[in-house]
Every structure is written in C-alpha cells, then in structure tokens.
C-alpha cells in the first residue's frame, strides 16, 4: 500500500531564516506530487505541483520554491521566511496515470516568529 511522509510535524522559525520541508511517498512510482498551504481561516491553496522529476509548476508566485530531486521526493524551500509564510503545509500525491483523487500527508505546522 502507498504511504506518504512529511517532516517535520511542527516548526517554529524566525523571520528571514531558510526553510526546507520534505515529503516522500512509498509504494507507488511516478506519482503526481503537490504542495498546499492552509492558512488560519482560509482554504487549501495549491502552491506547486509536479508530474515528474525536475518538472515543477508554480501556482502562486511567492517566497517559496519547490524541487523534485527523485521520483518520490518533493521538497519545499524558502531562502528567507516571511511572517505571512506561517501556516499548515500539506504534501499530496495522486496516481499520474489513472486517477484524480489526491492523498495527503500528515502536514507540517509552520510558525514564523
């Protein structure tokens, strides 16, 4: 069966510090991968998605970037965090060939102070 991992679970970082969140998927190959952010009182916002290694599409221009160095690894980064980057970050995957439903990881709660 497929499993998705995200770490860390919680993170408190000062403004201006870098960020690296990692997501890995097990039990599937060539998945579509997604990064979402859920800010307090707001809906899920798609940040990036990837249909293959090295292929990243950005939905919202902002202070963040994403990379996919391996087939089942997706990384969300920032060089300098802003207060507005605080939120709940979720990684998700879907079967790139045949299915549209997405499966989410446990999430990372980021607080920028």
């Amino acid at each position, binding site marked *: 069966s497929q499993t998705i991992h995200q770490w860390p679970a919680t993170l408190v970082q000062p403004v201006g510090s870098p960020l690296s969140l990692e997501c890995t998927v097990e039990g599937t190959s060539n998945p579509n991968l997604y990064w979402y952010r859920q800010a307090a009182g707001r809906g899920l916002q*798609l940040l990036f998605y990837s249909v293959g290694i090295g292929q990243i599409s950005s939905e919202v221009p902002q202070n963040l970037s994403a990379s996919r160095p391996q087939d089942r690894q997706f990384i969300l980064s920032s060089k300098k965090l802003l207060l507005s980057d605080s939120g*709940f970050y*979720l990684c998700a995957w879907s079967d790139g060939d045949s299915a549209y439903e997405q499966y989410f990881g446990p999430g990372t709660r980021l607080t920028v102070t």
Partner: protein
Amino acid sequence: SQKIEQNSEALNIQEGKTATLTCNYTNYSPAYLQWYRQDPGRGPVFLLLIRENEKEKRKERLKVTFDTTLKQSLFHITASQPADSATYLCAPSGAGSYQLTFGKGTKLSVIP
C-alpha cells in the same frame, strides 16, 4: 475568475439525521468533482469523486450528486454519527487536469 462556495461555514445536526452540504461553483465547468474530509490538525482524506456525466454516486452512508446545470454538488451523510463531525471540502477540477481548487469547507458537528 473561478469561485467555489460551500453553503455555510458550520452546520449542526442531530445524530441520526441526514446532513446535506452544498458546493456551488461559478465561472467554471468542471469535468469532475471530489469531496474530502478534514479533521483538525490533519490532512484531508479523499471520500468520493463524481464525474460530470454521473448524476449520483454512493459509498456506504455517503451520497454525492452533481448538477452541471445548477453548477452545484450536494453531499449527503445519512444516519449521521458524532464520528462524522469534521470539515468537509469540495474540489472541482477540469478534464485532464490534476490540479484541484478547494472550497473553504463546511464544518459539520453531529450532536448526540
């Protein structure tokens, strides 16, 4: 621009009754629509997907309808239980697109 509205931010219902949640969309013609459940502090969990050529989809106590004329999907939970208390999200999407746009969700509370 595309807009997704879920009928209310919160819905309270008595245990055993049928809960009905609404998802309306504008400036959009989705080919399919998904419903997810999200518990506090956790990622959403996929529940059901319905395609534009399907009127209704069922899974155990869950039922989803999709009316492309009204631009609306209804999500029903029959014989609701306190364990059904959660936030429910709708997410329409276009044909061939894997990108989902989520509504803000409806927080359902089932009262014993």
